[in-house]
């Protein structure tokens, strides 16, 4: 099982649907796909749908963290949606669960859609 990344571009945000396994082997591709979604001229609002991710390690977290930083530098946000146990686990053991906003989480502000 490898990694599949599919970006759905909308006017106000990009939804990046990720499935498979995120590790040292697949991280470079995840990084370039998300970086492309955050390229100049695109909205810096990203929802990374991780419902299909079956494995994720600290290398994957490093990629998401660098993309989160990039999104915020551009005045946007990167949210994680639908994490399964594998993603919840790595978020929790790295303490990054308090750093990444979860999409659809009642506690999280919805990304303000820039008008």
């Amino acid at each position, binding site marked *: 099982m490898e990694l599949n990344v599919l970006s759905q571009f909308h006017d106000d945000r990009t939804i990046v649907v990720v499935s498979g396994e995120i590790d*040292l082997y697949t991280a470079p591709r995840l990084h370039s796909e998300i970086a492309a979604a955050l390229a100049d001229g695109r909205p810096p609002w990203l929802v990374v749908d991780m419902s299909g991710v079956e494995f994720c390690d600290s290398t994957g977290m490093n990629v998401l963290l660098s993309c989160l930083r990039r999104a915020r530098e551009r005045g946007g946000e990167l949210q994680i949606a639908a994490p399964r146990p594998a993603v919840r686990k790595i978020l929790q053991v790295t303490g990054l669960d308090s750093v990444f906003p979860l999409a659809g989480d009642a506690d999280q502000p919805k990304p303000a859609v820039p008008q």
Partner: protein
Amino acid sequence: METGGKTGAKPVPDVKFGLMFRCERLSVPVMRRVLGDTLRGLGVDEESVYDILLAATEACTNVLMHGGRRIHDYAVLTSLGAAGCQVEVADQGIGVRPRRPARPGPAAPIAQLPESGRGLAVMRACVDNVTLDSSPGRGTVVTMRKRIRWTREAPLRELRAAS
């Protein structure tokens, strides 16, 4: 593997197997596939398998990222017995270099959060015990030990008795 205990458990592992991988990124998912299938086949419960694979992934990633350019391969040696599972990841690379100043914790502002430095913490969260044995120029051995749960179908008598 230290399996000696008050219960008088067998002091040797029931199964021991070693894998050698060429130093390339693809070895990391392949290691997971082979180690995971073998552990499942021996009756290790799925949650324990995941924790072991995550910890082993971090250790193998460190070999590839920090072992240096001179090494061509590394070893993953696994022992399984009633007392649990031990995974050793060994390389003959440059060894662990002295640490840079302490990194900020996860509570630090996002701009200060490092984009690395979490692998060992992940290993420690996934298994009961992690040791890192390294000397400059003589490589690194990371040893991870974990008590595990067994499925009902654990094929080895000794292991089934422990479940």
